[in-house]
């Protein structure tokens, strides 16, 4: 039974990693075919570093991810504080609304915002979708995840410490900064990281809300897959994957047990 489970595990990991092995292998292909490996070369990496469209969209992706994660963390953390203090039906209403973008399929969230943007932009003459609409869209789908990662920390917090600080003459503002913020900080940080990654990774919502002038990396990748497929994409994916893998391994080596972060 044990051996069977082991073999099964190996098969599943092969299934999960086979495409990744293929991507990495073909990133070193000296030919330009996605299907036949001809020999080893670094030409795709060299071409990648000269491709301004890709580099620019990588830059745009990072900007959108950083700004949207920061704004979402601010709005979301404030909201979590407010929601945590609510009771009864008011709390359920807020929690239900918060869940809409989480439960709705990406494509529905995407087209719902697209309808709004197209409708709103029709009032302005030459305005079109771009940085602004994309940023709003990303902030919108990030906020709920920040709320969901800060709320549990607030729920688990001991209110007596805050009240004790007040009783001992601390002003509400400084009690908040010195007592509450440190206790919910892990939730804020994980919300921020989650928002950043979701934003960096998003394809569907950006696809419908980015317009033609401002494209993030996943959109550029998509438009490149539609033309004759370029192995530059494999080189790019391999590089990004290597960076993430090193980061994750470094974090994992440092981390104490049973603190695993999951992406919803």
């Amino acid at each position: 039974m044990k051996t069977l489970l082991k073999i099964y595990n190996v098969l599943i990991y092969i299934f999960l990693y086979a495409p990744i092995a293929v991507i990495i292998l073909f990133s070193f292909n000296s030919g330009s075919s996605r299907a036949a490996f001809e020999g080893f070369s670094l030409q795709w990496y060299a071409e990648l570093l000269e491709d301004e469209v890709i580099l620019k969209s990588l830059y745009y992706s990072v900007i959108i991810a950083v700004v949207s994660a920061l704004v979402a963390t601010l709005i979301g953390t404030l909201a979590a504080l407010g929601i945590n203090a609510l009771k009864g039906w008011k709390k359920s209403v807020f929690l239900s609304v918060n869940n809409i973008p989480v439960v709705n399929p990406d494509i529905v969230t995407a087209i719902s915002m697209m309808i709004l943007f197209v409708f709103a932009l029709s009032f302005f003459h030459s305005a079109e979708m771009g940085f602004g609409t994309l940023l709003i869209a990303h902030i919108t789908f990030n906020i709920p995840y920040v709320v969901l990662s800060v709320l549990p920390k607030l729920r688990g917090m001991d209110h007596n410490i805050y009240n004790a600080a007040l009783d001992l003459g601390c002003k509400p503002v400084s009690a908040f900064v010195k007592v509450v913020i440190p206790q919910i900080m892990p939730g804020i940080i994980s919300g921020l990281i989650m928002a950043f990654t979701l934003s960096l990774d998003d394809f569907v919502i950006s696809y419908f809300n980015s317009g033609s002038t401002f494209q993030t990396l996943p959109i550029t990748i998509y438009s490149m897959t539609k033309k004759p497929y370029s192995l530059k994409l494999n080189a790019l994916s391999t590089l990004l994957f290597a960076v993430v893998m090193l980061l994750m391994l470094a974090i994992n080596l440092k981390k104490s047990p049973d603190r695993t972060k999951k992406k919803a």
Partner: protein
Amino acid sequence: MRKSVAPGGSRANLIPYSGWMTLFVLIPIGLVVYYAFTGVNGFTLSNIGWIWTYRKTLWLSVELALIATVLCLLLAYPIAYGMSRASAKVQRNATLFIMLPMWMNFLVRTYAWMTILEDTGLINSALRAIFGEDFSGLRLINNHGAIVLGMVYNFLPYMILPIYTALTKISYSLVEASRDLGANGAQIFGRIILPMSVPGIISGITMVFIPSISTFIISKILGGGKDFLIGDLIEDYFLGNSGVVNYNIGAALSLVIMVLILVATFFMNHFDKDAKTSGGGSLV
């Protein structure tokens, strides 16, 4: 002594959030409903009527998403179970390695399946190397099976992780107690482990079914573009890739997905009530 207060409970904290969510979540959803029921001449049910026209596409989307979800559940459970029984270090590494593939762009990963599956791809080349050049090859791509494979591949981690989380919450002393009382392996699994992992199973099903039923990329890359799923239709109606832009029909089709998911979630939550005591394995 003053009354105990929740810190930061000022209503002002909710103002930016309420404004933002109203403007960019509630109003857009309202607009989808509005567009679904209106046309050039105001109120109409003709957009909803298109659902009947596309009933085959709709049914195919539901069918493939269901198959992918069931396959994910069957494939994920043993993995999640094995992980939950392993040492802390193995658990940590396994979680990392299950999540790691998701960090590579999913378009590029899905394209890699093309390299593996296509007629001149890696599997068929390997088979030709074994059976000789005459081997005509297997038809592995541009069919429903390939779409399901793409769904299972992309969403399997979303099934493994919540089930694993639910399984780690089961107290092993329960299992020991039931063994002491004479339960055999099948009874322990059927009466303790499985029921107590239901919350994880439910959030896994949700997290696989929703992206599967609404995908438009997987079907495009691995399905050969001939079997459009409902997601492909919505994309076409909003972006006009096949020449026709019609927000109203697109909105009606989106509404169908939303209602389908709402109904599914309702039933799932109902089912979940029976297992409420075991603690949630939910990720969100």
